[in-house]
């Protein structure tokens, strides 16, 4: 081993290149690691941190978003991803088409009765840990459509939401702020509050018997997954 290495001994002073000069600097000392970051940590060459903390920092600094459009807000979301606003600058802008590859789902729009079960399914398909940004007033309360017969009164009725970005639609800047807040929160290891989700996917046979269920008994199989909306209890 050692004899092999010796064959490659080179006189470093003989080999010069711009790159090397730039790296080593004119003084010849390699200050590659004497970065600003290093200064901030003090003179020790070691960074002491908990692995958890490190992972949280990493997680917050590299988030994959789910490419998920619902309604009007998704237009502003597209603008947030694209030129000018470019969410990617903050380490959070790679839209993934598959939920299996995504960490964050931005819910950009009105959720209606037919879509809520699908959204829940998409959310379930994302790997842990996963985070949710609710974009627009529709995901907070149903927004301008709150009184609609078919509109779920906010994303939180179906999936837990970490950050709410109000607006109709929120400006791209607002969404960026929301995402940055989420990153900050993840980096600090804060967990989101536990929320009550009134609407769950459950098996049809598990529903409480009542008039509606009786009526639908021959239309829906016992083991079909269903979501039951109790509109009267909605806010």
């Amino acid at each position: 081993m050692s004899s092999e290495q010796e064959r490659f001994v080179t006189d470093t002073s003989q080999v010069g290149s711009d790159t090397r000069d730039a790296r080593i600097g004119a003084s010849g000392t390699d200050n590659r690691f004497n970065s600003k970051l290093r200064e901030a940590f003090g003179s020790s060459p070691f960074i002491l941190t908990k692995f958890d903390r490190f992972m949280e920092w990493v997680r917050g600094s590299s988030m994959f978003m789910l490419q998920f459009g619902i309604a009007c807000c998704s237009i502003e979301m597209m603008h947030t991803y694209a030129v000018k606003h470019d969410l990617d600058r903050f380490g959070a802008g790679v839209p993934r088409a598959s939920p299996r590859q995504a960490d964050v789902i931005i819910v950009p729009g009105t959720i209606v009765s037919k879509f809520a079960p699908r959204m829940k399914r998409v959310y379930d398909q994302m790997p842990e840990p996963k985070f949710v940004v609710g974009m627009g007033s529709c995901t907070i309360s149903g927004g301008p459509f709150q009184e609609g017969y078919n509109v779920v009164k906010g994303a939180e009725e179906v999936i837990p939401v970490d950050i709410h970005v109000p607006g109709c639609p929120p400006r791209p800047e607002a969404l960026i702020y929301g995402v940055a807040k989420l990153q900050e929160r993840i980096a600090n290891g804060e967990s989101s509050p536990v929320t009550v989700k009134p609407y769950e996917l459950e098996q049809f046979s598990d529903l409480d018997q009542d008039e509606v269920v009786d009526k639908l008994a021959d239309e829906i199989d016992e083991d079909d997954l269903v979501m039951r909306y109790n509109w009267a209890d909605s806010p």
Partner: protein
Amino acid sequence: MSLEESTPDTVDTGVTTAEEIEALLGDLVLDRDDHLNAPGFVVRPDQVQDTLFRLRDEAGFDHLSCVTAQEYEDRYESIYHLKKYDDPTDEVSVVVPTPTDNPVSESAEPVYRTAEWHEREAYDLVGIDYDDHPDLRRILLPETWQGHPLSRDYDQDRPQVVPLREHANPLQEDHEGDEDDTMFLNIGPHHPATHGVLHLKTVLDGEQVVDVESDIGYLHRCEEQICQQGTYRYQIMPYPDRWDYISAGLLNEWAYARVAEDLADIEVPEYAQVIRTMGAELCRIAAHMLAVGTFALDVYGDFTAIFMYAVRDREKVQNILEELTGQRLMFNYFRLGGVVWDLPEPREDFFEMIRDFLDDLPEALEEYHDMISANEILQVRTVDTGVLPPEVAKSYGATGPVARGSGVDYDLRRDDPYGYYDELDWNVAVEDGCDNYSRLLVRLREVEESAKIIEQCVDLLEDWPEDERTIQSNVPRTIRPDDDTEIYRAVEGAKGELGIYVRADGTEKPARFKIRSPCFSNLQTLPEMSNGEYIPDLIASLGSLDIVLGEVDR
């Protein structure tokens, strides 16, 4: 705004007068029920097809614009709003009442293919049954929904159960012999190529599409109900922004403004009309930019430069619109009788901003042509794919760039003029290739035409005398149109004919507010364009239709 069409006795060449129609229909007519926009004829529920066939074949009403269904205290009613592609001001309404206890009416599907979806919607939301309909089931609401939400006795608080079925077991029906080797593919509702929450149930044979069925309703936000709860004066105007939300807000607002102004007989000052025209065309550019960008995205398959270029140009338009209206997307800028405020001060800066944008536009379009329309890859993918012959387009009620890409020369801005369009110099872009490529070209050419219109508007506005800048006419605080007046009015939205039917009942809220969405009709043509074609062509066809789900589902 004139009510010319309400006096249809003005004989014009090619125009069918109410008397002629009455004579033509003979004893099919039970009664007259005229609307502000058109003469209305009441017919029996079992003679719908006879009536419509006669009107289509002998009087030339080849465009079933919209089907409105509603429930009165004592009856249900379906209204078929007919027009002519050659002259959309020539309109007639066929009114079909059905009794409350037995709301069965004959389907219009054999006459106009587009009636299939319109009647399904009527069945879904109002609860009228259509005899002879090929496939009468719910379209917007989940199949297990209880009750019909726009009927009179609907209880909004009753619980509903919605199933999540992964596959509707479609293979079984298709596998008739052992040789058949078809595959079922779900596209959507969460899928990057469906432009929102559209669900396509596709059956493939190898790589070819055997059958495709659109499953819509994933964004049915009850727009009609919400508009029926709002007052005419202020509460309805914010909602049109959210139908076609691809920056087409002002175009949609105009649809409502036009119908309400005609209904309540409100004048709009000329100055406001010019501002409206300018704003609307800016919106059209933004909307078409996104259509082109996402179409390229669909065809090339990734977030490539074209999409970014399109967004870059949209940002410019959005900045101008933000200056004008105060919002980037949901403008809420029109008011009945005008617009909410004047152009921003200093006006010179604002005009300069627009002029800068217009000056850069030819170069930008050149780029698009280089990268998209002149690109061989794109041409291979789009020329002669997704073919939609004009006759088929008409029978599905297709409008907008989809119809114009099939050689149907139909543009309401010219054919049924409103605003300031008839004073300006511009052309209607028509291509007769009938394929995906033509639809793309129409959009790109329309951007040029819109730019022409904007330029002329800016010229006009710059020289407008300062003391004549009236932005709103005098409009009463509450608007109560007369009881039982009905009107259907349409404008040329970004996607085609965006129409609204309103029935007033003497209160300050509409009794029925029905939206005719161009995307809803255009999307219906998808199976015609893609059955038998390859699956990538299906995606390209869908992209070229440029649907927006907020408008399809409303």
